[in-house]
């Protein structure tokens, strides 16, 4: 070995696309804000930047769900590889669970189990990324869609959610944005980050618009049932006759177990449109190449769903509602902050920052960085002047 290590030339390097993509993500923002925290501050950090109340005792998951997984592990029946769409008992359990709130039965064949909702996003975005295609995302949005789209080099176009209209989708904007290369529109309901719930009528209009444009609807319903205001949660699945819908969900939010990594992607396509277009085949191909949810969590699904009582959900939802109300009331007392719409769903709300009332704070990122440093509190900067915060733990603080 004669060569000088310092002069050694290596032929490999980083994929720049990865760096650009991850910088769009929440973790990147959170990591940066966390680096502003003052190590000398003895107070506990208040983490309101992401939606994960599971560390807090008041949001402990249901014991029945825990026991269900313990049983699955002890049975020794769930240590094996799973098929790419999940094991039959899990697919069936999820199909039945989702069908409870629908006017029709979902077939287990249409349910694909994923490693959390995030993997469903990863697989879908990847499958849609054909050369030249574009996808419509809401603004404000859940940044993971942006990251994954950037990684697949799928062009993103943003349509607005209108704060003056309760965060409804700007449908005229959607029509103006779409062209013949647009493949899908993402709708997050209940909405992360805005905290609103779309009405039945509005969802129907979105479906009709998508149908007219010839595009898929990706219905991100990971916060399904997190509706505590006046509007009940309605699934986009109800409009699958109008337009092909791919519905995403998980146990992460309702059971407060994001760490268990069990989600689903449900293809609702009564007229076989996805099949005829070849898209279903592509989804299958990508699923075949991708990792799967832990088999023992899948195996526990029938009991997780079957044994968790309704009181667990209703009592937790009541707590979430109280947090939201408390947060909203307190925020309204702070002059430089306005909350355009009272939160009625999900775990978040978007608030507006009135920079003109603040000295020496240049923008929302600056606000959040200083807040982290001075008050050991983490909230997430939005685009321009709006930022989001999770109201869940605010009750405790």
């Amino acid at each position, binding site marked *: 070995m004669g060569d000088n290590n310092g002069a050694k030339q*290596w032929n490999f390097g980083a994929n720049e696309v*990865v760096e650009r993509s991850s910088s769009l993500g929440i973790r990147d923002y959170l990591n940066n804000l966390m680096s502003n925290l003052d190590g000398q501050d003895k107070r506990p950090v208040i983490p309101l930047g992401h939606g*994960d109340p599971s560390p807090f005792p008041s949001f402990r998951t249901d014991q029945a769900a825990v026991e269900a*997984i*313990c049983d699955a592990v002890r049975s*020794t029946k769930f240590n094996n590889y799973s098929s790419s769409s999940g094991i039959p008992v899990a697919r069936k359990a999820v199909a039945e669970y989702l069908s409870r709130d629908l006017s029709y039965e979902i077939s287990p064949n249409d349910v694909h189990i994923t490693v959390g909702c995030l993997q469903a996003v990863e697989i879908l975005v990847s*499958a849609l990324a*054909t050369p030249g295609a574009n996808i419509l995302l809401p603004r404000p949005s859940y940044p993971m869609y942006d990251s994954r789209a950037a990684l697949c080099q799928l062009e993103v176009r943003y349509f607005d959610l209108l704060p003056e209209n309760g965060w409804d989708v700007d449908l005229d904007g959607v029509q103006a944005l779409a062209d013949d290369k647009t493949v899908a529109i993402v709708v997050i309901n209940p909405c992360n980050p805005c905290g609103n719930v779309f009405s039945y009528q509005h969802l129907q209009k979105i479906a009709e618009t998508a149908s007219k444009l010839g595009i898929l609807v990706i219905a991100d319903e990971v916060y399904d049932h997190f509706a505590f205001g006046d509007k009940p949660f309605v699934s986009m699945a109800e409009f699958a006759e109008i337009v092909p819908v791919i519905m995403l969900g998980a146990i992460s939010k309702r059971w407060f177990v994001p760490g268990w990594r069990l989600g689903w992607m449900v293809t609702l396509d009564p007229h076989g449109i996805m099949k005829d277009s070849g898209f279903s085949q592509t989804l299958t191909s990508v699923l*075949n190449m991708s990792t799967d949810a832990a088999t023992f969590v899948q195996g526990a699904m029938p009991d997780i769903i079957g044994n968790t009582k309704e009181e667990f959900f209703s009592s937790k939802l009541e707590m979430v509602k109280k947090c939201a109300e408390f947060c909203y009331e307190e925020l309204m007392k702070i002059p430089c902050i306005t909350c355009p719409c009272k939160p009625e769903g999900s775990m978040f709300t978007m608030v507006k920052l009135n920079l003109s009332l603040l000295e020496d704070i240049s923008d929302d990122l600056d606000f959040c960085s200083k807040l982290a440093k001075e008050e050991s509190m983490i909230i997430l900067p939005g685009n321009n002047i709006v930022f989001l915060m999770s109201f869940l733990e605010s009750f405790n603080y």
Partner: protein
Amino acid sequence: MSEVEQPHANLVVPAFEKTEKDNKTQTQKGQSCVWRFGGSDKAEKASTVTLRGVIYMLFGNCSKDVKKTILPLGHGDPSVYPCFRTSIEAEDAVVDVLRSGKCNSYGPGAGILPARRAVADYLNRDLPNKLTPEDILLTAGCNQGIEIVFESLARPNANILLPRPGFPHYDARAAYSGLEVRKYDLLPEKEWDIDLEGIEAIADENTVAVVVINPNNPCGNVYSHDHLKKVAETARKLGIMVISDEVYDQTIFGDNPFVPMGKFASIVPVLTLAGISKGWVVPGWKIGWIALNDPEGVFETTKVAQSIKQNLDITPDPSTIIQAALPAILEKADKNFFAKKNKILKHNVDLVCDRLKDIPCVFCPKKPESCTYLLTKLELSLMDNIKDDTEFCVKLAREENLVFLPGEALGLKNWMRITIGVEAHMLEDALERLKGFCTRHTKKIETDDESLQASKPSDNNVHV
């Protein structure tokens, strides 16, 4: 074995029952709109190389009319067989963590620190250059590790060197991330040693890495210290990293000891992929790791480490349950548990090789000493009307409900791979059926006696 018994009930084996009817495929009448989304060529191309396609095709050739249970020996998942049940300590670790309530939250992209530390300690037992927790990145299974590493290395015109025969998931993910694949040979005449000259011949300035699988799937050999050192030196000379897939590091039953490639990290940067799936027989638990063996800090300066970590930030994680259980699982790693499992595999190998002695057209040139497969070579010249390994396997499935993997799926034409990570009686049954099949399909060689017989009037012509 009765029809009713299905020890592999959880194995991915399609049943004979018809699958549920497809959704109505009639497109909406009067729909004047054009649907804008469609299939992706890239996905199609990448997924055609996976094993699933071949295995399902072979299952499709099995039939209820052949009154024998399907023997699925083309793909491997020992976890469904009671004799390969995982250790009680591993199960305990998971149950304890669940009951503690401390595994329900999101973790950081690279994995939770206690798990990373536990993996570093576990690997450091055999490494001179000690790893820190920061050098360990957790993945949702070793396969996801492959996906993430390839994506993080992909650049325009980059190529990667993969072994032939190999593990098709590498080809699929390389294709999907846009990396060009170049194959180097494992030499059957040299006990599957790596063709180092071949590597030097195919590498160029766009080559980023060479993938080495040790212990080797599908060949079953374990590379020697000296051979691995030569690989490291060759890689260094070419300016490429070594990606060492060591997922079978605890599945060894021969005499050659396992040597981690990380031992040569001062010669060349080594990226190790491994996990607990094979060692503990829990592929469904979906946890693996990437270990950056790199005392010279090359992965840092070239930003590869950063790229992988950033990728992990936007990619699904292994469940926090299994991450939290990992320290206890690794600390309690029991030599006896591994020995017991490996003994069964050795016995299975000996059994198959013994039975193969009576089957001239299928032979095993090198007994495997690791992993859960046995590679055999087909002597097609002895056979009647079977032109290649795929046809052999299709006919075998059709006539005997016996599924082996044609070597072509791994890049080895006219070889055949037998899964040995199964219950011994299944192998007994399989070899019986194989013998029957081969006997039926062996060319009838005419001897002088026989041709003499043929010229005599046949008995059949004599009627009473």
